[in-house]
């Protein structure tokens, strides 16, 4: 993964940021200040509608910045699509599309290809390596519709890996997947963090945050807290976001937090 390291080692920086929902004036998220360093595994947590997906979309350049500044490696998000790999939440893809796992992974290479985008042997090797990394190499030639939900998630993770971007964004990757897939995702995140890749994950699963993330950002239409898991996973902070811990989170939260 070769990419220029900015002197400060900052992957993402937001200042006085305001993001609005598409085609609407409603404010989705405001962030006074947020800084994420390279090689960190960052969890974005908060209730539904907190602005987690909105922030990720702005980082990929799918949503314009309404006010303030948002930079990735010192640049505007849309300026360098190669810098960000993104695995969306509810993948708006046609699962009956005539395409196999390897072809999906190969699409990760398109961001580096110039028109007319001939695929070369090196691209194929990288796509296969990405499939291997998520344990899907033996399914490379299978049609995507015959794979399980977890396997499909891993194929899309492989596509993001084949992109070789210094910043990886995962939107709710653990929803509806098997334990193998969950293990693979955590393992890949760890490997990437070691090579200096920054991984930002929007997640509902607060139970896994402490063990697998370096930094936690708690959102609820604005930034409530930002810091290490121990600093952020505090009952009074979580209550601010989720509005009263007992009613909503009895089952999902570890007891020692309350």
């Amino acid at each position: 993964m070769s990419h220029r390291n900015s002197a400060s080692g900052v992957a993402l920086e937001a200042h006085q940021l305001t993001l609005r929902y598409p085609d609407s004036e409603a404010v989705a998220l405001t962030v006074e200040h947020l800084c994420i360093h390279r090689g960190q595994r960052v969890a974005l947590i908060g209730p539904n509608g907190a602005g987690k997906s909105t922030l990720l979309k702005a980082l990929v350049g799918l949503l314009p910045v309404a006010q303030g500044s948002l930079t990735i490696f010192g640049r505007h998000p849309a300026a360098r699509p190669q810098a960000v790999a993104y695995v969306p939440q509810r993948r708006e893809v046609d699962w009956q599309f005539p395409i196999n796992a390897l072809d999906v992974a190969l699409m990760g290479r398109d961001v580096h290809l110039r028109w007319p985008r001939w695929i070369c042997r090196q691209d194929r090797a990288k796509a296969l390596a990405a499939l291997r990394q998520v344990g899907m190499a033996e399914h490379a030639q299978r049609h995507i519709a015959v794979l399980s939900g977890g396997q499909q998630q891993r194929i899309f993770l492989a596509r993001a890996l084949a992109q070789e971007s210094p910043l990886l964004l995962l939107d709710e990757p653990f929803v509806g997947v098997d334990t193998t897939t969950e293990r693979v995702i955590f393992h890949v995140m760890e490997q990437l963090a070691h090579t200096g890749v920054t991984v930002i994950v929007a997640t509902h699963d607060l139970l896994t945050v402490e063990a697998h993330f370096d930094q936690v950002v708690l959102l609820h239409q604005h930034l409530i807290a930002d810091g290490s898991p121990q600093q952020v996973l505090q009952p009074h902070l979580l209550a601010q976001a989720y509005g009263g811990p007992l009613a909503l989170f009895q089952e999902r939260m570890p007891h020692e937090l309350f």
Partner: protein
Amino acid sequence: MSFFDLLVEPLRYDFFTRGLVVGVLLGATCGALGCFVVLRGLAFVGDAIAHAILPGIVIAYLLGLNIFVGAFLMGLLVAGAISFISRHQQLREDTAIGIVFTGAFALGIVLISRQQGYTRDLTHFLIGNILGIAPLDLWITGGVTMIVLSGLCLFFREWTLMAFDPVHARAIGLPMGALHLGFMALLSLTIVSGVQAVGIVLIAALLVTPAATARLLTDRLSVMIGLAALLGSAAALTGLFLSYYISIASGAAVVLTSTLWFGSALLLAPQRGLLWNWLPQRTSTHSSF
């Protein structure tokens, strides 16, 4: 008379040979491009463009111009009108298409109805006549085939990405608007070149049916495109010989052949065919997720 004689006999007629060449080229073009039409859910759009170009055809016909020119200009106008109307957020795009194509079609009928022998002319445009192709139209169809097939080769990855995962396509910075416009231009060109052969009403069948049949037979897009082109051409050949020997309308014979093959694929295709699933001991391994 041997089978070979049966195949060669109608080739004595120039009009038949021309029809055959146009049919094969058109079948291949529509089949290949039709794969993206089917995968992007644009079947209605294709049908709408075909109907909406009627006034262009009529005006060109009345002015004594090549109807290809009138049809293509009208196609561009209609595509522009559709995108203009669907900019209103209250209206969905399919509504805009429904309004524009029926309005344009009605305008075409009004123009024809002012003429003598109105029903005959209208029938001619609606049904087409692949055996009445002029030599110049042969060249036009050849040119369109070249343009469309090279377009498909050069923008294969872009259009595949757009059809499969538009969010990813946008995220990696593909120029979605320009790619869509380019695709629509090729689609209009194909439809316009096919209208003389099979008519306004049936052209959508050439786009949709071979591609859908091919989809039932393969899970690879590149194979699907090749197969659809082959099926489209083969249906044109078969339909034209059928129309010659049993005296039926040529365009309709081509479409019906294609439809019949789709029905067979639906019934008999390996893995997905209805028959395959009825076989008791082979429960399908093709389960969904």
